[in-house]
């Protein structure tokens, strides 16, 4: 199965290799936390994760073809 991962906000600056959306291929369904770690980031770093534009928790398991957006924490007003 494949899941697309997109970064938003400051996270794009910190992980320039992920500036463009990345497709993560996995043999079995895995959690959001595992997908974040698979792209080289601590699972706790994004403040929120959207799956197909809906907020999900780190233990959510996306389906094949879903899009995850990893949001940077709010940047201090």
């Amino acid at each position: 199965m494949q899941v697309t991962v997109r970064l938003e906000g400051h996270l794009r600056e910190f992980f320039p290799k992920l500036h463009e959306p990345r497709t993560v291929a996995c043999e079995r369904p895995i959690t959001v936390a595992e997908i974040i770690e698979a792209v080289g980031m601590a699972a706790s770093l994004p403040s929120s994760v959207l799956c197909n534009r809906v907020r999900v928790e780190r233990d959510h398991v996306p389906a094949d073809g879903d899009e995850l957006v990893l949001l940077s924490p709010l940047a201090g007003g």
Partner: protein
Amino acid sequence: MIPGYGGNILRIDLTGKKASASPVPEQWKREYLGGRGFIARAFWDEIKPGTDPLGPENKVLMAPGPYTGQFLSSSGKLHMGALSPATGGYGDSNMGGHFSLELKQAGIDLLILEGAAETPVTVVIEDGKVTYRDASAYWNETTFETETRLKQELGEAWQIMVIGPAAANGVVFACIQHDFGRQAGRTGVGTVMASKKVKAVAVKGTKDVKLHDARRTLAAGEKMMDQVMKQPGFTAWQPYGTPEVVPWASSQGVMPTRNFQTGVIEGFQNLDGPTMKAKVTEIDKGCTSCAIPCGKWGKGVLNGKEKPQEGPEYESIALLGSNLGITDIQAVAYLNGVCDELGLDSISAGNVVAWSMECYEKGFLSEEELGRPMRFGDAEAAVAMFHDIAYGRGFGRILGQGVRAAATHVGLGTERFAMHVKGLEISGYEARYAPAMMLSYLTCDIGGNHSRSWAVTFDVATGRENFDGKAERVIWLQHVRPLFDALGCCRFPWVEAGLDPESYVGFIEPITGMSFTWDELLKVSERVWNLTRMISCRHIPGFGRAFDNPPPRWVEEGQETGPTAGKHFTREQVDDLLNRYYKLRGWTEDGIPTPGKLEELGLGFCAEAACK
């Protein structure tokens, strides 16, 4: 004349009740843009060394920017400045709402309030014409009461800013309030306005602002509005506003808790965005032309008492919630409403009351001295103390002079946990093991504030123990973030919704006809940064590295709990951070801009004031 501006500096001498207008120098527009840039430039000329922050020679400066109200999203910001009674140095604060556009449409790019009236006044500005109303009868009224009164007297079309009892009674962290919940909160600009006996300023402007190319400005603005609303960050963030970050801040150990003793609060879930939306928020409330809008209007509740208020936003949740050991969002909203109506900066107020609670719990101050037991978690005690502060009663009068002065007054080692930088109470991020964020606080030109550089995510992403790249990042942020304050717009479409900051370059030419590259805009910001540093050099004897100091707590003890429990940097490591920062800035080892640096930035006129 360069378009995109109101055109004038309006100077109001309160002593003689005289007003005069003069054109803004064209060179200022090119070199300082507006807003914070104009404030800093005028500060240098207008406020002389030796000025008493509460004397008539201090001035309150207010400036919109070229982007204010010009079709782009979130362009209702006003910058204000004065010599700070809290720090003794450069002070400024930024406020949203609708005052800024009204001022610009009254033809004003810089408003200067100088001198002092004999008796309380409300200053009324209509298209640049100034009249005065006697405000004696309502001098000690709450902010909400006076704003309501003036809206009723003058009409809804007027935009009004007011001070509350805190300013009237000399609290050094009193704010200016506008639109029932927007604040110029930091550095005591409200206190300076009160020292001039100005209770309120009302403005109405009906003039057109000429643009270089209105069609292209409108097209760029429409495109931006569309982009903002399509951003995934907008979807996630807008329903909650800044409280959205609460769970992240607590999980990373950066949420100040019980006077910064730790950075993790049990029960943070009761303070987060969804809880606030469910229990407090009634409607969204925003500034001029904002597609986002982040403001949330609703009711605070404490023991059955209700208080309508705007917010609380993240900083208030951190300082009035976790930092006071309170995890009931309705109670935090109530406290926020109390601070707003009294005209207290909720950041400083939460900080000083947290310090008093730690003093009480550790036996440095007694119930008799404080007027009541001050325990963490006791929201009623906090409400009572906010009133004591605002009305100058009992120990509240001491706390009203700021945490630095209060700790000096009490002594007994309580200075070790007085959480301030340069005399300004630290805002909502616990940073003892976050080097870039700590450096942001230490070098912020107004003192312990987050708004110039917010670098916690960078610390977490690149390693908290790692110093490499931290000073570079802080400097970059200190140029980018305040640029928005010079342009007169809000940075949330960038920092929260995720727009590319460089996209803001595209507005400058259609609005003003001036051409700037992104790097040239950042150069303006660097100029302003060095100028504000020189202003503090000029006003604070011995100013330099010794003023870029962390509170002892941050270099002597680790957090009690959380992911970085027990960890902190040493004074030597902090010195290392500062050395790297000063070197990159082209400053001396004592943190003073060199004459060469000042010349390079077109600031040769302040070289002579380098600190002795």
